């Protein structure tokens, strides 16, 4: 219990210093694309290419109408890219900011929040391709606001999950290889490319997959004008679970982290 309080304190301290993550996320974004002519619009270009080529190809393979398949795949893919970059980059985050951790006392959560907001900025550039697709295929509805709510819930989930990943990757070098591998497995087992209806009743594959619920709560309001209450509740549950886990792990190892370099 003490550990959880200790971890919670770290999180609260991070929230109190938004400059550490909000402003820094913009800075990271600027640094990433410095000296690049097209800059962050590379994100737009690369996701457009993938969505266009694969969206077209797979709609043929699954024999689906492209106006149904394209928005489905585009949303799933862009949300997935966000998830996967947060988790994969979390593996290296403590190494990347070693110099900060060993010099000043800053809340560890702020590093993950910083990463998350940088990834949000990347995602915003991909919206430039996603929004036209949505408008052309399904139009605009007020119910889409639930997708925004869903995204906020996903974001909080990922901050906690990526902190757990970051801690384990710093302590055990093997973790980052396992995480990379695991994320690929999750990509193929989560309905991003394929539709859940193809499972024909074997829905347990989805029920126990939090990634499905996270994507579903963003995608479903747009694709089928329907708010998936079930996914929302589960995602709120995973926030609680992941927060407790990450607070616990952080509280347990907080004092040891600087020695792990």
């Amino acid at each position, binding site marked *: 219990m003490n550990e959880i309080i200790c971890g919670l304190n770290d999180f609260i301290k991070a929230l109190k210093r938004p*400059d*550490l993550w909000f402003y820094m996320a913009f800075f990271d974004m600027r640094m990433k694309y410095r000296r690049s002519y097209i800059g962050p619009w590379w994100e737009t270009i690369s996701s457009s290419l993938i969505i266009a080529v694969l969206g077209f190809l797979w709609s043929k393979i699954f024999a689906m109408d492209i106006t149904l398949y394209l928005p489905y795949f585009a949303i799933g893919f862009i949300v997935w890219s966000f998830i996967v970059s947060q988790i994969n980059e979390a593996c290296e985050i403590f190494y990347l900011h070693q110099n900060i951790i060993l*010099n000043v006392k800053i809340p560890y959560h702020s590093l993950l929040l910083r990463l998350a907001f940088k990834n949000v900025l990347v995602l915003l550039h991909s919206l430039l391709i996603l929004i036209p697709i949505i408008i052309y295929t399904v139009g605009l509805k007020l119910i889409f606001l639930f997708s925004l709510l869903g995204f906020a819930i996903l974001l909080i989930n990922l901050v906690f999950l990526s902190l757990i990943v970051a801690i384990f990757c710093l302590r055990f070098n093997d973790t980052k290889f396992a995480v990379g591998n695991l994320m690929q497995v999750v990509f193929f087992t989560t309905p991003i490319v394929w539709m859940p209806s193809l499972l024909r009743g074997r829905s347990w594959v989805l029920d126990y997959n939090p990634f499905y619920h996270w994507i579903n709560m963003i995608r479903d309001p747009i694709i089928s004008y329907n708010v998936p209450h079930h996914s929302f509740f589960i995602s709120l549950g995973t926030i609680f679970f992941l927060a407790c886990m990450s607070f616990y792990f952080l509280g347990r190892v907080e004092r040891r982290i600087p020695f792990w370099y």
Partner: protein
Amino acid sequence: MTKIVLTNVTLNYPLYVASNMSIRKALLELFISNKGINKKSTVNHITALDDVSLTLLPGDRLGILGDNGAGKSTLLRVIAGIYKPTSGNINVEGRISSLLDIFFGINMDASGRENIIIRGILLGLSRHDITKISEKIIAFIDIKEFIDYPMKTYSTGMKMRVAFAISIHVTANILILDEWLSVGDKGFVKKA
């Protein structure tokens, strides 16, 4: 009141090397040690600080001398709150600005101007506060148009001027400096 009080601070510095950082070892330990066969930790420790007590009051300056590996930086890191002592108490009141590494928080691809903001935020200022004093810092650095060039184009002396200027303009009650003697001509190590 600003003060630093260390009472009987001991720090056992764990030495993690590749062999005891592995997940296999940790898993083995998790299962075996529970059965009471191998309770001994596999991580070697070095007693870096042994029963250190000191009191520093406003105006005090403390210089720490010692051989390499004597624990000077470790002591500073303990005061800065980065390393938590294994035993003993530490009571620090006041805002700490710890500068253990001269180039901490400096991004060589960013300009001097950007680095002032970044480092100011990392040192605990809000963006608003650091932006307010940034002109003063730029005037102090005095490297003209270079301030807008990426820091990797700077000479070593210019880089140090930037790093140094930011640190001394960040108002703190406690300033912790590690091997900074080569930077300024004022060889102060700690100002409380």
